[in-house]
Every structure is written in structure tokens, then in C-alpha cells.
């Protein structure tokens, strides 16, 4: 049975966006009902960053709008992409004369909307480059990346794009750096307990007490496999092994490592898992040069996390280290 602090289920998105704006008055504003906009966008003399996606994944995506990351998040409804019209409005609003990076997660609805948006943007003469994030390694081999889902990687990708934009780089340069980053990302999920859909109350995924799901999607959809429960260290070893293999990462390389809690996994578990990840990598001579350990992209009260890594170099690290100020991620 669904047990959540909500009102009318059909107003979830509107109410949560209003709440986000009220809680972060100096960082963001709500425009047209579903555009979460960086308050400093008006003064931006740089490339800007726009993204789109469903809600219900808080703090993603709209919680990462602000100076130094995304400038506008176009919000759909719970787990559902927005329509193209509001995306086109967002691109127009975002374009400060230096062009726009449009970050899109590889999910069917998001991609349909993004493709329709790109077509219309071309007609309108908006200078925009689309970057697709598709780092879930379990659904297809790297050679068929277009069959891979977008996971938490969109969020560090906003940071890389926003950082490159802040450095005054051109649209093509920001796009090339962001593309380099997304081409070198990998993520894999592990799930312990399912969640309920906040509108319908239906189950999103069902797992037995003694099993965990490896490689499930962020709406409880399939892919991957179920295995008996393991310890934190064993789980990280399993996931990290898959990630390193997929990205062909070897001793001496530098990585970003993100532990993204999916909603019901405690910060305690995330930290224990992050520790395991760093130790596992150190033992292989791989250095972690950037990290986030937190809830970034959740699926309601799903138990589990996404383990994410990305290959880093000096250029990416410089973008990563630029300051940013968003409701749920800050760097000074």
C-alpha cells in the first residue's frame, strides 16, 4: 500500500516544483509552470545548458539548475518526459547568443521529445548541440551505446558542461568536452527494495528479502539479473569489476566515482560502499580524483544505488573544479 505525504496525485509535479522554487529563491525560478530556470541566466554571457526529463527522481534533474551547472531543466510529469513545445521555449530562453548544450538522457520519451525539439530548433535558427547520456553498461555492449539507458551520469555531465561554459569556451568546445566526458562514463545499478509509483500506487519493482537486483533500470524495469544478497564490499567489487572492464580502465588512470543513492539506501551504506570503491580502485593503482556520495537521481523509495565512474583528464578535472551553486550541489 502506498504511504506518502502527498495531496492530489495529479498535482505532484506542480507542487514539488513550487516547493523547490520556494526553498531556493535566490538560485532558481519557475517559469511557465514546468521550466526550472537559473536566476542568473539573464546575465549569462556564455554557452548555456538545458536538460529535460520526468520528475519523481528528486533531487534530479531540476535540483541541479543554477550557476555552473544546468541553466534550465524542462520538467515533464512523474517519470514522463515533457512535450517538445516547452523544450523549444526553454532553448529560446536559454540562448544568450553563444549557443546551447541540450543534455538528454537516453530514454524513449526523452529522446522522442528531444528529436522533435531539435527539428523545431533548427527551423527557429537556435544554435544548439544535443548531447545524449547513455552510460548504463548492463543493457547493451559499448559498441551499441544507443541501446544503453541514461542513469545518474547526466548530473556530472551538467557540471562538466557548465564548468566548460564558465571558462568562456565556444559552443563547439563545450560540446566536445562534454561529449568526451559522456563517452567515458559507465554506471551500473544494484537494487534491494522496490518503490511505489506516486501517482498510481503500483509497485515499480519487487524483490525478495534475500535477493538483490543487479542492472535494473531506474523505474524498476528489467535488465540485469537477481542474485542472493552480498556484503557492501562484495557488491562493490562485483559492480566495479564490470565497470572497469566495460571502460577498459587500467592501472594509472584517474576516475570520477559517484555513489548515487536511489531513495531508501542510507548515507551510511553509501559511505561504506564508497570506501569499498576507493579501496578496490587503489588496489588496482587507479586514483579517484572527483566524487559525489549522495542521493542525486532517485526513484522514490527504491533501496539500492547506482555506482558510476568516468575517466578523467586534466581538462575535465578543470571543468569539474569550477564553482557552481545549485539547490543540491555546490562547489566553491
Amino acid at each position: 500500500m502506498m504511504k506518502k505525504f502527498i495531496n492530489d496525485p495529479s498535482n505532484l509535479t506542480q507542487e514539488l516544483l513550487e516547493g523547490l522554487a520556494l526553498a531556493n529563491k535566490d538560485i532558481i525560478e519557475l517559469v511557465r509552470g514546468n521550466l526550472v530556470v537559473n536566476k542568473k541566466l539573464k546575465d549569462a554571457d556564455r554557452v548555456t545548458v538545458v536538460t529535460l526529463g520526468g520528475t519523481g527522481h528528486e533531487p534530479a534533474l531540476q535540483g541541479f539548475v543554477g550557476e555552473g551547472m544546468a541553466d534550465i531543466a524542462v520538467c515533464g510529469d512523474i517519470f514522463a518526459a515533457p512535450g517538445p513545445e516547452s523544450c523549444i521555449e526553454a532553448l529560446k530562453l536559454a540562448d544568450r547568443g553563444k549557443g546551447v548544450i541540450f543534455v538528454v538522457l537516453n530514454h524513449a520519451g526523452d529522446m522522442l521529445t528531444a528529436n522533435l525539439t531539435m527539428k523545431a530548433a533548427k527551423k527557429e535558427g537556435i544554435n544548439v548541440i544535443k548531447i545524449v547520456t547513455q552510460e548504463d553498461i548492463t543493457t547493451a555492449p559499448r559498441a551499441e551505446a544507443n541501446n544503453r539507458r541514461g542513469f545518474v551520469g547526466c548530473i556530472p555531465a551538467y557540471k562538466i558542461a557548465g564548468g566548460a561554459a564558465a571558462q568562456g569556451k565556444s559552443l563547439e568546445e563545450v560540446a566536445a568536452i562534454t561529449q568526451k566526458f559522456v563517452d567515458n562514463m559507465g554506471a551500473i545499478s544494484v537494487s534491494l527494495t522496490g518503490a511505489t509509483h506516486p501517482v498510481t500506487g503500483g509497485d515499480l519493482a519487487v524483490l525478495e528479502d534475500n535477493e538483490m537486483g543487479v542492472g535494473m533500470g531506474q523505474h524498476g524495469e528489467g535488465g540485469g539479473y537477481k542474485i542472493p544478497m552480498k556484503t557492501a564490499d562484495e557488491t562493490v567489487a562485483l559492480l566495479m569489476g564490470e565497470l572497469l572492464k566495460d571502460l577498459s580502465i587500467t592501472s594509472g588512470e584517474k576516475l570520477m566515482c559517484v555513489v548515487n543513492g536511489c531513495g531508501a539506501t542510507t548515507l551510511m551504506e553509501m559511505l561504506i560502499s564508497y570506501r569499498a570503491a576507493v579501496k578496490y580502485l587503489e588496489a588496482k593503482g587507479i586514483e579517484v580524483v572527483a566524487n559525489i556520495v549522495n542521493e542525486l537521481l532517485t526513484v522514490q523509495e527504491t533501496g539500492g544505488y547506482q555506482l558510476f565512474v568516468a575517466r578523467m583528464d586534466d581538462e575535465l578535472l578543470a571543468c569539474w573544479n569550477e564553482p557552481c551553486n545549485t539547490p543540491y550541489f555546490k562547489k566553491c
Partner: protein
Amino acid sequence: MVLNKKDFIQMLIGASDALDEKIDEFSEIDSKFGDGDHGVTVGRISKVIRAKAESSPEHETLSEIFEALGKDIMNVNGGSAGPLYGSIFEGFGEGLTGVREADEAAIKSMFTGALENIRLISNAQIGEKTMMDTLIPACEKAKSSTSPLPQLLLDIADAAFHGAEYSKQCQAKFGRARFHKEATIGTMDAGAYSLYCLIKGFSAAINQQ
């Protein structure tokens, strides 16, 4: 028999009724291999259709009605169903360009328009467990049937039904369901089913008169 604007308004209401009746079922089917909210999106689409049927100004042509609906449906913020249903309605509108009263040829053109328009955003084929399993046979039947109206609409709805039924035996190749691979065999595609209901609603509105 020809179908005038009043008939088309009835068809839209019929479609909206047919969708509303199955909202929970759409979500339930979608919950098996998707995220369980197809009924939520279809409910919103149905509301848009009904609102248009009840408020279309007199000067609005058939083509304008469907094109406006296409645009509104595309922007219901409903994941992939929004753009897909939006494209179908836009296509219906394009197929009805210049038509004041629809004869058999106009209905054929209406369905052809839908298929051509959705092809701009989806390359799904029959057997890939999507709404195309319903749309393609329905459009083929519209083209090939020699029945006069209103039987023509019954023929199209019948083909749509068999298409939706056929989606049961297919393995998903698109959307979130594709990650469940062969486990999807045996369950109807939620989009194929909702599209069948919509087409059946069109037909029922005319054939019950």
C-alpha cells in the same frame, strides 16, 4: 454515407469514452514491463480529446481539429505516448486536409496520414511490441478494404484489434519494456492496446448511430 463534422465530434467523444473505460487496465499492463503509468498519460490524452470535441468552434475544419489536437497531445508531458499519439493526430489532420465531409477515400487518407506522420519519429516495425502493431494493420486495412462507410470503420477497428492481440506474442524491442526481453512475450503492449481502444471508439460512435 459521408461523415460530417458532427460525426467526427461524436467519433472523438467515442474515442475518449473508450479510453476512459480502460485507464486502470492500461496502467496495469504497463506496470508489468514499464513504469505502470500508461493509463495516467492516456487519461490526460483522453481529457484533451474530449475538451476539443466539446469546444471546437464552428469555423474549425476537420483538419484543423486534428492538427490542434495533435499539438496539444504532444505537449501533455506524457513521456513517449505524448509525441506518438500527437503525431498520429497530426497525421489524421494532414490526411483530412481540404475535407469537409469525409467519404471512404478521406478516411483512407486520414489513416495514411497518421502512418506517414508517425514514421517521422519512429521506425518501429510490426512485431516489435509497440503501438505500430495496431497502427500498421489498421492503416493497411483502411487502404485495402472495399467496404463502404460505416462498415469501413468496423473493418479498420477489427484489424486494429488483431494487431493489438498479435503484440502479445512479440518480444519488446522499444521503450523500457525491451530490457525485459523474452519475459515480455504473452503480455499485450500497453500502447498497442490503448490505440486499438481509440480506433474502436471512433468506429463505435458511428456504427451505433
